[in-house]
């Protein structure tokens, strides 16, 4: 067996020197796929160490961050990203080789998606991020005049905690780069299922901006075990967490009332295809794009589609679209094979598919395209039905409907969970359909084929990527007017 061991995580070296020699424990996480095995060692701190680390970061981080200019940060981050985009870079080669073993995703899928994802963090995109949330970027370092009068300045958290999940590799970069852009010192908690990308990014970033060494830490604890990490939860001003709704609840319940919490929980996304998009010319294109959304990371993202609602009346019927979609998914499968599944996952898929079979027995409006043991399946329903969660891993619903208003019946039951809607509608319909979807709780509308690739500056779950991380401090107009009275040169 080909076995590799390496250390992940990051602890400020000067803080490590304050700890007793060899007192830091490293936990080995083992990943095995076929004849390859990867052992990742991650820092597993004691309660005392967690507390001491937070105090260190709070003492050093904010001051150091203030000294580093925004352009240095943007340049540094962008340089790391450009290196990672280079296929010959040794860190990129390392990720390409090890992420498939760790996550089970196909290597080609990782190579392609990682590159397209990393592009979101190049210098010009980072500037878009900032411009999206701050009318004046100078606010991040100085008080600036604002339209209502007076001055405003951004105050980042003294210390922010990121709790990452592993459904999509490199997910950690979204929030980590966000916190850097607003100059917040951070502790990141690695996901046990993908403990790699965040720490590689941080190590590369420190080569670009060595001054950041006292502003960041990347640690690990077993999910749900807060016996040691409570010290971290207690000392952060802001906690941003990705994970199941259960995980988010358990974190939120452990926070003080003044600690802000940003939770990105479980969501459900879908697509809407109008009959206007289903003519001879476009139907195939729509199906190709839809298949890309399904295949990218095997629907593991919150923005990945569970179902396609297809309007009747086009030259290509919803049923024909379902068949077309399956064909396109299959043809993509030749390039990108399915993620390797655990016994538990594949049993669930078998069971879910059998459940769908039982549905076809009970309900003649349901049909299944694709074998029971095929790599993907399309469940077609020829009458409008409420959105249901698919078992993911390239299993998707196609649901026919006749009138736009039926979408209310289909989507309302899941209102609180809706996130992205991929749409294929004509420009004449776009405004109406978008308004309808917004009322149902959707927070992002994009073209089919783009569901899994949100642009820089997107509003994740309707929130701000950067603005939500910080506080805005105002010096009100009254202060300025009053202080005029106290100048030595007053009349």
């Amino acid at each position, binding site marked *: 067996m080909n076995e590799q061991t390496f250390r992940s995580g990051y602890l400020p070296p000067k803080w490590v020197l304050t700890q007793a020699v060899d007192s830091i424990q490293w936990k080995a996480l083992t990943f095995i796929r076929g004849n390859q095995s990867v052992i990742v060692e991650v820092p597993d701190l004691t309660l005392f160490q967690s507390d001491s680390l937070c105090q260190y970061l709070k003492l050093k981080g904010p001051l150091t961050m203030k000294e580093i200019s925004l352009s240095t940060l943007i340049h540094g981050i962008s340089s790391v990203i450009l290196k990672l985009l280079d296929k010959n870079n040794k860190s990129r080669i390392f990720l390409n080789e090890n992420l498939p073993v760790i996550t089970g995703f196909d290597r080609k899928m990782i190579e392609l998606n990682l590159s397209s994802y990393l592009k979101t963090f190049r210098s010009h995109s980072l500037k878009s991020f900032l411009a999206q949330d701050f009318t004046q970027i100078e606010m991040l370092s100085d008080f600036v005049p604002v339209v209502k009068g007076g001055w405003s300045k951004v105050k980042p958290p003294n210390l922010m905690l990121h709790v990452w*999940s*592993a*459904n*999509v590799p490199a*997910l950690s970069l979204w929030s980590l780069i966000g916190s850097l852009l607003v100059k917040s010192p951070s502790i990141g908690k690695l996901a046990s*299922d993908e403990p790699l990308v965040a720490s590689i990014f941080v190590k590369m970033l420190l080569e670009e901006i060595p001054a950041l060494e006292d502003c960041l830490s990347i640690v690990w604890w077993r999910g749900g075990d807060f016996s040691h990490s409570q010290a971290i939860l207690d000392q952060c001003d802001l906690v941003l967490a*990705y*994970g*199941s*709704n259960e995980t988010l609840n358990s974190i939120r319940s452990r926070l003080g009332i003044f600690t802000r919490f940003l939770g*990105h*929980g*479980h*969501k*459900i*996304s879908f697509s809407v295809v109008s009959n206007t998009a289903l003519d001879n010319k476009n139907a195939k294109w729509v199906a190709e794009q839809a298949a890309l959304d399904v295949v990218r990371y095997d*629907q*593991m*993202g*919150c923005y*990945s589609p*569970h179902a396609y609602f297809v309007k009747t009346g086009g030259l290509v019927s919803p049923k024909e679209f379902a068949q077309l979609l399956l064909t396109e998914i299959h043809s993509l499968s030749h390039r990108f094979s399915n993620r390797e*599944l655990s*016994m*538990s*996952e*594949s*049993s*669930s*898929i*078998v*069971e*879910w598919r*059998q*459940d769908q*079979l*039982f*549905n*076809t*027995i*009970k309900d003649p409006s349901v049909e*299944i395209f694709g074998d*029971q*043991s095929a790599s993907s399946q399309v469940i077609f329903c020829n009458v409008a039905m409420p959105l*249901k*969660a*698919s*078992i*993911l891993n390239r299993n998707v619903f196609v649901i026919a409907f006749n009138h736009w208003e039926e979408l209310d019946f289909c989507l309302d*039951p*899941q209102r*609180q*969970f809706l996130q992205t809607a991929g749409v294929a509608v004509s420009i004449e319909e776009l405004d109406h359909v978008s308004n309808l979807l917004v009322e149902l709780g959707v927070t992002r509308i994009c073209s089919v084929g783009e569901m899994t690739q949100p642009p820089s500056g997107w509003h994740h779950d309707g929130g701000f990527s950067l603005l939500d991380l910080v506080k805005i401090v105002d010096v009100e107009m009254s202060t300025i007017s009053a202080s005029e009275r106290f100048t030595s040169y007053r009349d």
Partner: protein
Amino acid sequence: MSFDLNYLIPAFINRQDVSVAEFNELALRLFKHQFDFNSPYQHFCRLNGKTPRNVFHWTDIPPISINAFKDLNLSCVDINCCERVFMTSGTTRQDTRGRHFHPNLDIYNLSMKSFFKKAFMSSHEIMPMGILFPSDVELPNSSLAHYLKLVIDHFGTDDSLYLMSNSGVDIERFIQFMNFSKEYGKPIAILGASFSYIHLFDLLKKRGLSTVFPLPNGSRIFDTGGFKGQVDDIDLSDFYDLLTTIFQIPLTSCINMYGMTELSSQFYDMGQQSLPSIKKSPHWVQTRVIDPITMQECTPGQPGLLVHCDLANINSVSTILTEDMGVIVDGGFQLLGRVTGLQPRGCSLTVESIALTQYE
């Protein structure tokens, strides 16, 4: 046909020396019968491309998942003509309970009694039995309650007692039974669901009562069901260590039964001296292990999902795809635990959680 099977299957169960070929022949006959008369199953088979015309071996019979018992009426006769319906406790999908229809319990009872005698009673004809489970009067739809009623009726002496009701373990009766066993001095048996024992031990502790009750030599303890969803993380070896300490009997006398509402036969081990224990099937049940990805049979030693072909399941479907992971070993199979469903991998909503919100 139905008459044939109602005669052939009991005859097969009653025989001692049967060949694999004979099992196969009867399994195919039963499959054809169920294909012809159990219409949802026929539909299911057709969707899987399987009919009696292309099924030549019992391993070709399409296994149906236990969820089918929740969604479909799997019966070869009108369900209104069934004498008994056993229902699952609904540990996996809270909304619906699986239903197993029995026109009569003749074959179920024969199957139960034949293998129980062999696997549990050892050389004894009857023994005093203490039952740590509510009676079948209290739980008329529980297959386990019916099973334990058969135990008391056919293998228990007149001193046998129910030590539990719907409201919990009856501690006075338990003490009474323990006192009796001391005086009796000959082997007795205690039978119940695994979690009943935990309730019993908790209760004894809470009341400050003795927690050691040495049983007469040769006594036996029976448990079934495991702990999924009932009690937090109890390690099996800890559980059996507890049983042997409390009742002062060897691990070889602790017998675990593996059964399910969707089947009409049970599996037993020969004690818990090594875990996981090896479960044995009666000769009218064949068990195989499949790889859920390919649905193909696993090689011996390779873990997968258990599929049972139970000839006593005459009225529903003979071949059941379980949610239990197992591995075929010499002398039987080992249970490796239950497949708990797809674990959420981050921010996409899962089937389980969405089902919960719909029924909250």
